[in-house]
């Protein structure tokens, strides 16, 4: 089960409002390769994994992604809270403001709602672990694109942290994939009896 620790994994302290950046960072929140996708993916893949190790790594990284979701949400919140209507209009935030006010909706920057269609899950251990490695690389690339878009040091610090965590997760998932391949070759089967 999950309990909540009243702190962020990494401090978020943004001093300057930037609505355009807030809108762009929605990609990491409700986008195809965002934190919500990652956490839901990993936490739901673990049920059909064949070994304790793979279940453990998926649980732990999935939980960490939930924590990152909170960091991304805090970032967007601090970048947008207190904005005046002129700022909203100037940033092209009108559409988002009309639907969701200054709130944090689980959408991507173009307003497309998050969907479980983003969750890649096949219940095949090797397929799932390989897909997770791809997901981490996509998330890293996403953060790199966001880093390209801003010069604000406060924001860059947080995005760099999140990007670095994706690299670490890739390494862990790679090791888990090695383990699953070894497990497969040791003649233990993942599949159901067909007879």
């Amino acid at each position: 089960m999950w309990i909540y620790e009243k702190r962020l994994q990494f401090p978020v302290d943004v001093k300057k409002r930037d609505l355009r950046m807030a809108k762009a960072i929605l990609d990491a929140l409700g986008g195809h390769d965002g934190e919500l996708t990652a956490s839901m993916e990993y936490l739901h893949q673990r049920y059909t994994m064949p070994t304790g190790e793979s279940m453990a790594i998926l649980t732990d990284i999935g939980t960490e992604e939930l924590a990152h979701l909170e960091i991304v949400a805090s970032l967007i919140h601090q970048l947008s809270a207190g904005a005046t209507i002129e700022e909203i209009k100037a940033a092209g935030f009108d559409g988002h403001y009309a639907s969701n006010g200054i709130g944090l909706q689980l959408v991507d920057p173009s307003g497309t709602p998050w969907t479980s269609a983003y969750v890649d899950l096949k219940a095949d251990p090797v397929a799932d672990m390989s897909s997770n490695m791809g997901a981490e690389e996509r998330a890293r690339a996403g953060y790199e694109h966001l880093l390209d878009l801003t010069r604000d040091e406060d924001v860059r610090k947080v995005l760099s942290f999140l990007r670095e965590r994706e690299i670490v997760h890739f390494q862990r998932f790679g090791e888990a994939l090695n383990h699953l391949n070894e497990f497969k070759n040791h003649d233990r089967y993942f599949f159901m009896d067909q007879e």
Partner: protein
Amino acid sequence: MSRKDLMTQIQAVGIMAVDLHLYLDTHPQNTQAAHEYKKTAEHLKSLKAQYESQFGPLVNFGNSSSFDNKCWINDPWPWERQ
């Protein structure tokens, strides 16, 4: 120590603990890592105990060493501008 400094320490040691735990998930037989994890986890625990005694609960649902619900409700939430 100020709230912010203590929180920064907790965050730093927390990241170390997360990294060690993840490493141990994929390298279960690494004794060096296990030893480091134990050290780091104990350090983190003591930092959290210190924080909670001064500033109130960090964790909900009975998992904290502090039972001051007023702090939980009223003290700044992590996403609020400090």
